[in-house]
């Protein structure tokens, strides 16, 4: 519990540096739940938005009689559309994330959880609802939710490579996948396809250790996965470098292509970079830095 508290404190520190984040709410149906921020267009909500003259097709019960009595035409009163977006986060808790090539960089899992919680705090502050995919933490708001997220995020899983989860994902909501995506690409493809089917858009955020990016190994080596299920022996590790980097680039390309197809965003983050830059990027990605 102490570890969780510490983790929460660090995430709060990261989140404190950004203004409240307003997630873009593009989709109406299904997830319309009233939230705090108006959409500057008429819709469902509590606040008055405008009176508009009655048009054909409007129902009689929608007429605002008090306003209409002051003039000859009938007016309808419209309210501002207020919604809250649901953001579902999936953080890879598999063994491959528990890797750090040196003492100077954090483990990938630590960085991923930190970013997840930080973005959750920002979203919560902006009135959005956040939840964790694949767990029993559905999207909710409030400080208590942050606690629940922090607890749920601290859980490790035993498998060697994680597969993205779509369970608990709200239709037409937003989603964030944090992982190294070094495992089976098929699972990623399936998850993204399913998410696209449900109208979910989001961000695929790949977190890599600098050693995974540079492959600084030489000599006779047996490489083992962190969980110990996979092993590969080579007599000259330095010979493998070019081909490994090639494969990594192809993996990134494939993820990028998948994202482009499904309307997601894709980016890669290295644990040697600061968490702040990553959070800034995620902030932009959720705030609609894409010209909308």
């Amino acid at each position: 519990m102490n570890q969780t508290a510490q983790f929460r404190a660090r995430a709060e520190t990261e989140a404190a540096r950004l203004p409240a984040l307003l997630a873009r709410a593009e989709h109406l149906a299904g997830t319309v739940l009233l939230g705090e921020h108006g959409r500057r267009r008429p819709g469902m909500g509590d606040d008055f938005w405008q009176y508009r003259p009655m048009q054909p097709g409007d129902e009689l019960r929608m007429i605002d009689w008090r306003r209409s009595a002051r003039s000859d035409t009938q007016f309808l009163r419209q309210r501002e559309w207020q919604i809250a977006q649901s953001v579902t986060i999936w953080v890879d808790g598999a063994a491959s994330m528990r890797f750090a090539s040196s003492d100077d960089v954090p483990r990938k899992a630590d960085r991923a959880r930190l970013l997840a919680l930080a973005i959750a705090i920002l979203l919560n502050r902006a009135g959005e609802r956040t939840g964790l995919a694949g767990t029993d933490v559905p999207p909710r708001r409030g400080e208590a939710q942050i606690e629940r997220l922090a607890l749920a995020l601290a859980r490790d899983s035993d498998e060697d490579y994680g597969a993205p989860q779509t369970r608990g994902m709200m239709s037409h909501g937003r989603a964030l996948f944090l992982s190294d995506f070094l495992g089976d690409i098929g699972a990623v493809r399936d998850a993204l396809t399913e998410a696209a089917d449900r109208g979910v858009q989001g961000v695929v955020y790949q977190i890599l250790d600098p050693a995974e990016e540079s492959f600084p190994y030489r000599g006779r080596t047996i490489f083992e996965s962190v969980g110990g299920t996979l092993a590969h022996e080579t007599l000259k590790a330095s010979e493998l470098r070019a081909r490994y980097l090639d494969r990594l680039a192809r993996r990134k390309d494939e993820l990028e292509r998948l994202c482009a197809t499904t309307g997601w965003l894709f980016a890669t983050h290295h644990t040697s970079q600061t968490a702040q830059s990553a959070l800034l990027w995620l902030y932009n990605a959720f705030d609609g830095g894409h010209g909308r």
Partner: protein
Amino acid sequence: MILGPLGFAAPWLLVALAALPVLWLILRAVPPAPIRRRFPGVALLLGLRDDDSVTDRTPWWLLLLRMLAVAAVITGLAGPVLNPQTEQNDSTGSPLLVVLDNSWASARDWPAQSELMEALLSEAVRASRTVAVLRLTDPEPLVFQTADAWRSRLTGLAPVSWEPGPQDLAEAVAIVADTNVETRWFSDGLARTGRDALFDALSANGPVTIHESAVPLIALSPAEVAEGNIRLTAQRVRTTAAREIMVDAHGRDPAGAMTVLATLPLQFEAGSPVATGDLSLPAELRARVTRFEIAGQRHAGAVTLTDDSLKRREVALIAGREDREGLELLSPLHYLRQALEPTAELLSGSLSDVLPANPDVVVLADVATLSDAEQAQLIDWTERGGLLLRFAGPRLAASDVSRAQEDPLMPVRLRAGGRTVGGAMSWGEPKALASFSEESPFSGLTLPPDVTVSAQVMAQPDPTLAQRVIAQLTDGTPLVTRKRIGAGQVVLFHVTANAEWSTLPLSGLFVQMLERLAVSSSIALPDLDELTGTTWQPVQVLNGFGTLEDAGTLPGVDGARFVQDRIASDLRPGLYEGPDRRLALNILTGQTVLEGVTWPGTATVVGLERAAETPLGGWLLAAALMLLVADVVASLALSGRLIPARAAVGALAALLLSAPIMAEAQQSDTSLDDDAKALLASSEVVLAHILTGDSRLDEAAHAGMRGLGETLYFRTSVEPSEPVGVNLETDELAVYPFLYWPITPDQPIPSDVAYLKLNDYLRTGGMILFDTRDANVSGFGASSANGRKLQQLAAPLDIPPLEPIPADHVLTRTFYLLQDFPGRHTGRSVWVESAPPDAEQVEGMPFRNLNDNVTPVVIGGNDWAAAWAIDELGNPLFPIGRGFAGERQRELSYRFGVNLVMHVLTGNYKSDQVHVPALLDRLGQ
């Protein structure tokens, strides 16, 4: 085989070095073990094949490391030796003769000599030569033995403190004649007769090599007294460059430990063989010096022992009458002072003052009666070897001392009155002295004709009188008598010490007589006449290295030999004890001149240095081991296993380290507690009570202190923290301003150390409140158990005079105005330090100007702690009085406590208010 300075025992092994390149190729072909790495990206590696089946090679530097290790092993096994000793001459067959001068001058170079001898002997062992050793100080027939046998005896050889004499050398010549030997002669570098003859004899036998150190020998002549200083003279054998040496004066410090009392630098001028310097020492220190030694010269010649001749004797002069108004020339001590001043230290003062200084001589000039204590002291001092010199005079003549029976401090009985001859009212002429007899210590002194005696005290004829007289007048009446008491003696001059009764003090004879009596001592060595026929027993003798050794069973020496003979095996340098003094016999006399030896031109003279043979095999093998360890570390590092290894080593080290630390932590627990307690007490005001060992009483006292603390906290600006119980034996008291000490009849008496602390505490401003808790039924007398205990406890305490608390004591008004000091009991009498006797009440002042400090003790019996005591919730623990009156009593007891603590913390502040009217007056209000 020899390569430069290196030799090899098994050179053929070096061939194996040629195999190293082969080893290189083999080692290169073997791949290093694979490294296991955790790597999540392995998923991307699956299915990748190595292009090339050849592995990475072992790094070249690791190969080099291993090559070096193997090369070191091969070379080490080949038995390399640095500076191998090889035979330098062809006379392998002939036996070896080692000739040692073995004198004190050899002692300095003895370590080098014995090392060289060791080397020679080990060489002889290898060459299977027999060896004989000839010590010139003790020539014995040659015994040729195996070198091994001599090696084991080498440690038994040591230089002696004398030199070989001419007859020793002549004997040696006879011994070595006609033997075919090779000779190694270890010379001490000093010239002596007979050396050339021995050299010739040895040269006739075979080759002679002379080993002699080139460092000049420095020796110290005996110390002399010159112009009140000690003159030290050092000599050296070779007059080379200028050089400074340090001479240390050794002696016992007042604690009795040998130490260097003074150091004198002596400067040899270039080309000069002698260096002289004067050392000025206070008489006290001079008497302590036992020997002088040249620093850094470890031989007997650098040491000179001192005897009595250096000492200035301490003479205490005591006169019977001190007429300050009288003429100086009539003073009874004037002539003594004149005679002794140049050679002795004079002490004056009363007898009881000077005796503890343990003077060598006490002179009593016309002192008749001594108090019993003085007499006992004087007898004791005399028996321990003191010389008591008495002079007669009018007082002695008039007194009854030694009249009816012999006084222990008088050599003879005296007849009443004495006699006067040659005066206006008497017949006869003044008497002259008779010549001294043979047995007298004065024998041989010439009598000046003008010494006459006109008055004297007369000795009573006794059977012992004849043997006690050491000087007499021409008519046979004793003039000087002597008696031995224990180790000391009493000498009585039957005349005065001034010129009243005789002209003796005016003559030079007086001084000589004093000298003979060893009152003054400026004599160095007694002359031949005196020494002839005396026997001197050696007490301590010098060995060759200049260390004093117990003489053991060495026989006594005829005194004449001190002057005539040179130092020899039966006349060793050292300290000798004679009939009445000690003599030091040194190696150098004042006349000795050291001379260096001059060898004939044919002699081979070499130094003592010799490059030692160093086997290197062990070092090389050790280096190989180190290289292999480095190889292990490097291999581990290469295969990535070094980190766990380091962690394991670290854990092991931590484990090893932590064990003693934990033990230490456990040990220091109690002391930490003490420190924490003292720290707490010094950072806050803490009321403390003394632990009595009675747990109920201690709890009550604790609760009482708590109650008082709470009251103080609420009513005053004193905010005490939780009270503590103080253990007198272990706790620091100085940090508590106030101690409450309840008395029980059965509490232990504190130890002396605790009383020391308590007294310190009281003297430095602490206060103790003694509480007998018995309502003072006995008035602090011995009739109550608690009162008795209080008397016992307080007896060793440094408590000032006490008085019942006066009505104007500052305790009555430090915070509350009080006149009663009730606790659980309401006894009135409380005792505090009494006011100074001169304290008086000034008219118009409410109270006296009283003592200026806090009373160190307050003694009462009202069981205050019980009245103050509260439990954790603040409820009173003990019932006090009855109903509301009881509560009033409790309130008053709290007020007393507040006043008391205020008194402790603010002292006489309230007392100073007596000055307020005056201050106001001065301010003009």
